[in-house]
């Protein structure tokens, strides 16, 4: 009987391939991806379709393609973060509480690999479902029911910004999961930030105006500017969101490396 080959290389992301398989199995194994695709379709494109179709029926003008893009962006900016937070809030905390994380960490698995694995797989599935699928369906619906057309390339670029926006919330939730032990605290902190980020931005802007440009909600403006072909008011929101994501992941790894089981 042949013997398996021992792994000889130990690196900072040791065990990542195994964690990626585990995380993928959580999405694929019980058809979670299919169920979530259905839910997101109803919540984002279902609601947008109602707006596009019902307006003319109630005697209003047929919405323009720009109105459609605005509706799509507003829905994804409001539903997206909530969906991401709800779907990923238990990722670290559940496994820590039920003991399976402790079990995994007694194998040669690095803690950074756990976080990177969760971030990568959740990002791929959530962005595919919440951005790529919704964007594709949304693009078809807007061009079908709205007055005028949406250009494909600008719309695709705007979807990338939508994706960046959701990555912010995925990384924030993951980081909070590495810092706190209770889901209620995580939910309170992340939903609280979601609800009050406008107020936080305005308050901090009194210290320096830059703060109004570096919180993720500003990306909605960027999305609309790109999708409708308007002049881009700046790259700062995009760059800042990218920086936040890197910072959150770094903090998550730093904190998770200090967690004791």
């Amino acid at each position: 009987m042949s013997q398996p080959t021992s792994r000889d290389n130990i690196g900072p992301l040791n065990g990542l391939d195994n964690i990626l398989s585990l995380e993928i199995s959580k999405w694929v194994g019980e058809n979670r991806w299919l169920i979530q695709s259905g839910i997101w379709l109803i919540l984002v494109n279902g609601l947008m379709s109602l707006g596009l179709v019902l307006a003319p029926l109630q005697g209003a003008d047929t919405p323009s393609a720009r109105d459609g893009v605005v509706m799509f962006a507003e829905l994804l900016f409001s539903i997206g973060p909530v969906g991401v937070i709800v779907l990923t809030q238990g990722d670290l905390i559940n496994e820590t509480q039920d003991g399976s994380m402790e079990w995994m960490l007694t194998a040669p698995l690095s803690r950074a690999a756990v976080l990177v694995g969760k971030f990568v797989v959740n990002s791929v599935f959530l962005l595919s479902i919440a951005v790529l699928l919704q964007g594709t369906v949304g693009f078809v619906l807007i061009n079908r029911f709205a007055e005028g057309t949406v250009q494909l390339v600008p719309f695709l670029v705007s979807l990338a910004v939508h994706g960046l926006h959701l990555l912010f919330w995925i990384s924030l939730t993951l980081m909070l999961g590495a810092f706190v032990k209770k889901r209620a605290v995580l939910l309170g902190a992340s939903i609280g930030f979601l609800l009050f980020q406008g107020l936080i931005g305005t308050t901090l802007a009194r210290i320096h105006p830059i703060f109004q440009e570096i919180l993720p909600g500003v990306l909605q403006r960027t999305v609309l500017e790109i999708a409708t072909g308007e002049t881009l008011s700046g790259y700062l929101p995009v760059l800042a969101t990218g920086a936040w994501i890197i910072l959150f992941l770094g903090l998550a790894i730093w904190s998770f490396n200090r967690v004791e089981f």
Partner: protein
Amino acid sequence: MRLKVSRNIIETFNLTKLFGPVRALNGVNLEVPKNSIFGFLGPNGSGKTTTIKLLLGLQKPTNGTAEVFGKDMVQDSLEIRTSIGYLAQDPAYHDHMTARQILNFRAKFYYSGSKDAIQNRVAESIELVDLDDKADRPIKGFSEGEKQRLGIAQAQINHPDLLILDEPASSLDPMGRRDVLNIMRDLKKHSTIFYSTHILDDVQRVSTHVAILKLGYMVTQAPIGDLLKCGNELLYYITVKGDPSKAYALINSQDWVTGVTIENTEGKPTLIVNVNDSQIAEDELLKLVVTESDNTVTKFGKKEHELEEIFMNMVEVQQ
């Protein structure tokens, strides 16, 4: 990956762990020899699990250090874990997986390459713990005993040089305990086994070495044979039928005998004889009583303490 090991596979140096104001572990110096079955004893809350978690990198020491395979347990934790197998006190796995999937998942942390070879190793492990008929069922419905068997299977899947078991038999019925001890004996061929327990019977049956921990302090550690000896005393027991007074007088008159006491064992008198020369005692003592007293001897032997007796004495003295 195989790590080079000197005489001791685990060594701790003043290992200390505080949880806030609580000192869970106080300057523990532990030496676990290679190829031993090392029983780590102590009452609840004595620091056994904390020590194990420190060795596995699940916690970090407040003070002191430890070496496993001669490597630092904090700096080289990943490398150390390639050669360790671990069974937790209350093992928790991903409940939606089957036993085979759990073992496959675990195996992939240690092995790469051919899937068939990994599957073969998984199959061997399933066979070892006799879970063949349940291997493809989700572990949600497993009994405690079955979970413990799965725990042992996953702990040894990498042919570890060091197997750490935290209370491996505490939740099992007598048959389950027997099975676990048998598996431990089998695994000793390849691994050093370091296990915590409070079932002293099991320790005496399988361990080669023992350490006793109390309130975070190391009370003693020694080969079990040394611990079971009565210190420097040479004691023999002779259980007889009938009045032991003649035998008592005979024994007491020998110049190699330093003391005799009579105890009652299951309704029969037992003479406990303290001697200064074990060779003479082994040659002469039984012969003396059999030939020159009126008693029939029902039991004779060198007296050793029971581990439970030693454990209770040490733990109570420390209080």
